[in-house]
C-alpha cells in the first residue's frame, strides 16, 4: 500500500509538471465556430426541441451545434460541463442556467480561455455573458394571458387565476400586472377576478383546485393558469367533469400537451416556438464569435428566416412576442 500511496503522489507531481497552456487571446472568429449548448438538464424535451432549431441554423450557416447537459439540475453539475466544453475548445457556450450566480465564476474562467458565452431560456449574471436570448418578456406574457381570457369569455364575467405557489416570483409579478391592466384598460372593465388559487406545482392539487373553483363560483366563466403543470392538469380535470364548455382555460404551458383541448376551442395557450429559440441562439452565438455582436444596446443582427433582431438593455435579445395558440395556428408549435 505504501507503493500505491507513492504512485498517487507521483501522479500528483506529474500533473504539477504539466506545462500550462497559454491563455488564448481575445480573437474574433473568421469562420463559423462550434457552439456548445448547455441546457439545465439532459434529456429535457424542451431543450431537445430547441436543439433542433440550433441544428437547422448550423445547416444554414455552417459551424457545429453540440449539446451536453448534466443529469441533475444543479449549478455544480453545470460547472463540470462548462469546463468540459472549454476543454473541447468550443467557440461559444450557450447556457440555460440552473443558478444565475453560481455558474458565473466558471463562465468567466471560460472567457479567460477565449470562449465566448451567451445565455438562452434562463439568464446568468449579466457580467458573465455577452447576450441573453430571452423567449418572451414577462409583461407581454401577462398581457397576452389576460387578452386571451378576454377573447374566450367576450371580455365579460367572473374568472379566477390558478397560479403555481404563493411565493413564485414570476407568477406573482404577472398577476400584479394583470390586476393593474384590468384597472387601467376599459376593455377589461366587465371582467371580474374572483380568486387567486394555487396548484403548488402538483398535478393532483391543480386538478382539485380547478374543480373546487368551479364549485365555489357557480358563475365562473374562465381560469387563467400561468403554470406549465397546472394548465394541462386542470384541462384534463374539467374535461372529465364535463365543465370545459362552461369554464374556459388559458395560460402558459407547452402547446403539445394540451393540443386536443385547444383544438376543441375551449382552451387557449400562450406559448412560443421553442425551436426558434434554439435557432436564434445559434445565429446570435456565431455573431458573438465573430465580434459582430458585443452585447451593446442597439446592435442589430440578422437571424436567417426569423429576420432582424436588436440587442436591448443589459444585452437582452427577445425572441419576439409569444403567441396566443388557437386551433388555427396550433400546428406551428412542435412542443
Amino acid at each position, binding site marked *: *500500500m505504501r507503493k*500505491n*500511496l507513492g*504512485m*498517487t*503522489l507521483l*501522479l*500528483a507531481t506529474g*500533473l*504539477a*509538471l*504539466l*506545462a*500550462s*497552456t497559454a491563455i488564448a487571446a481575445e480573437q474574433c472568429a473568421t469562420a463559423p465556430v462550434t457552439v456548445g449548448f448547455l441546457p439545465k438538464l*439532459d*434529456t429535457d424535451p424542451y431543450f431537445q426541441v430547441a436543439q433542433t432549431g440550433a441544428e437547422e441554423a448550423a445547416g444554414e450557416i455552417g459551424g457545429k451545434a*453540440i*449539446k*451536453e*447537459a*448534466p*443529469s*441533475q439540475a*444543479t*449549478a*455544480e*453539475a453545470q*460547472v*463540470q*460541463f462548462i*469546463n*468540459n466544453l*472549454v*476543454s*473541447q*475548445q468550443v467557440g461559444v457556450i450557450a447556457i440555460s442556467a440552473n*443558478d444565475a*450566480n*453560481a*455558474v*458565473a*465564476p*466558471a463562465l468567466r*474562467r471560460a472567457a479567460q*480561455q477565449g470562449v465566448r458565452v451567451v445565455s438562452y431560456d434562463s439568464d446568468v449574471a449579466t457580467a458573465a455573458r455577452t447576450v441573453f436570448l430571452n423567449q418572451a418578456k414577462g409583461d407581454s406574457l401577462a398581457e397576452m394571458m389576460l387578452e386571451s381570457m378576454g377573447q374566450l369569455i367576450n371580455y365579460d364575467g367572473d374568472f379566477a387565476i390558478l397560479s403555481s405557489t404563493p411565493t413564485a416570483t414570476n407568477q406573482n409579478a404577472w398577476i400584479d400586472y394583470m390586476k393593474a391592466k384590468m384597472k387601467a384598460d376599459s376593455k377589461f372593465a366587465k371582467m371580474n377576478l374572483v380568486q387567486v388559487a394555487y396548484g403548488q406545482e402538483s398535478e393532483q392539487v391543480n386538478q382539485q383546485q380547478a374543480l373546487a373553483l368551479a364549485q365555489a363560483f357557480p358563475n365562473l366563466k374562465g381560469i387563467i393558469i400561468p403554470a406549465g403543470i397546472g394548465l394541462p392538469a386542470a384541462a384534463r380535470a374539467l374535461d372529465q367533469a364535463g365543465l370545459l364548455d362552461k369554464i374556459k382555460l388559458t395560460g402558459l404551458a407547452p402547446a403539445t400537451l394540451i393540443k386536443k383541448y385547444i383544438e376543441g376551442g375551449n382552451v387557449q395557450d400562450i406559448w412560443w416556438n421553442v425551436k426558434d429559440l434554439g435557432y436564434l441562439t445559434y445565429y446570435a452565438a456565431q455573431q458573438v464569435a465573430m465580434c459582430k455582436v458585443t452585447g451593446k444596446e442597439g446592435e442589430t443582427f440578422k437571424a436567417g428566416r426569423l429576420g432582424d433582431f436588436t440587442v436591448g438593455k443589459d444585452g437582452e435579445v427577445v425572441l419576439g412576442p409569444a403567441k396566443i395558440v388557437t386551433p388555427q395556428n396550433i400546428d406551428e408549435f412542435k412542443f
Partner: protein
Amino acid sequence: MSPRRAAPSLLQRWASWDNFLAGLTILVLVYAILAVPNFFTAFNISQAIAGVSERALIMLPMVVLIVAREIDLSVASILALSSVVFGMLIQAGMPMLPAILLTLVAGAACGAFNGAMVTVLGLPSLIVTLATMAMFRGIGYILLGVNSINVFPDAFLDFGIDNVPGTPVPWTIVPFLVLAPVFAIALQKMAIGRRIYAIGGNPEVARYSGVRLGRTVFWLFVLSGAICALAGMVYAARLSNARADNALGIELDVITIALLGGINVFGGKGRLTGVLWALLLVATIRNVLGLLQIGGDAQGTVIGLLLIVSLMAGNAAEQVFGRLRARLPLLKHDG
C-alpha cells in the same frame, strides 16, 4: 527451485484489489492521454481535479467510518449547512479567519450530534444520519430559505478559482492533498487505525480487548462533521455560492466510490489507497465521457455499470487471489 518460488511470491504481493484498481485506472488514463482529444491539457486536468475537491475530502472520514462499521449519510447536508453558516457569517461582516473557525466548529457540532445519538443512545448510524441528512439541510433552508449568498472576500474566491502558481493543481484540492496522507498513515500505520479496524471487524472482541469503542466512534463522527464543514467552504469558494441545496446527493457518490475502492460495507476491511484509486478512476471516466460529448444521464449509467462489473470482477478476483495466496505456503513446504 528459486525461480519457481519467486514467481508466485511476486504474484502474491501484487494480487490485491488496490492494484487491480490501480492498473485499471492507469489503463484508462493512458487511453485518455493518447486517444481522447483535449484530455491532457492543463485546463482540463486542473478543472477535473477541482471538480472532485469536496468529494475527495468527505471521502476520508467516510472511509474511516465505514471501516468502523458505521456510516454518515448526513455529509452532504452538513456541507450545505456549513456553507450557509459561513456565508451568513461573512455577510454579517465577520473577518474570514474567525468565520472559518466558527464554521468548522458548527460542522463538528453537527458531527457531535450524530456521534452522541449513535454512541450515547445506541441508535444505528444508518438511521440517525438518515434523519440528520434531512434535518441539517432543513436548518440550512430555515436560515437562508431558497436564497443564496454570492459575495465573498476576494482572497476566498481566489482560493476557489486559482491554481497553485506554476502548476495545474487547483487550490481547492490542497486541503485534501494535505489531509489524505495523514488519514492514510493514521488508518494504516498507527495504533488508532488498528483500533478502528478492530471495532469494525468485531466490535465485541474490540470492547473486551479494552478499546474504548464509544469514545472512538463519537470522535470519528465529530471529525466527519468538521471535514464536511471544510468541504462546505471549499464548495462555497469554488462556486462562489452559499445556499441550502449545495452538493445535493453527493453522499451517494462518496459511498459509491468508497465501495468501489474495496471498503467492505460491513466494516473492518478495505484500504484508503484503494479508495483513492477509485476516486481517480471515476473522475477520469466522467471527464473522458464529457469530452466525448456524452451527457450526464449516460455518465451515471456508465458509473453504475462500472460499480457492478467491478464488484463481480472483485468477487472472481478474490477467489483467484485467495487460491494464489493459499498455494504459497505449500510451495514453501516444497522448498
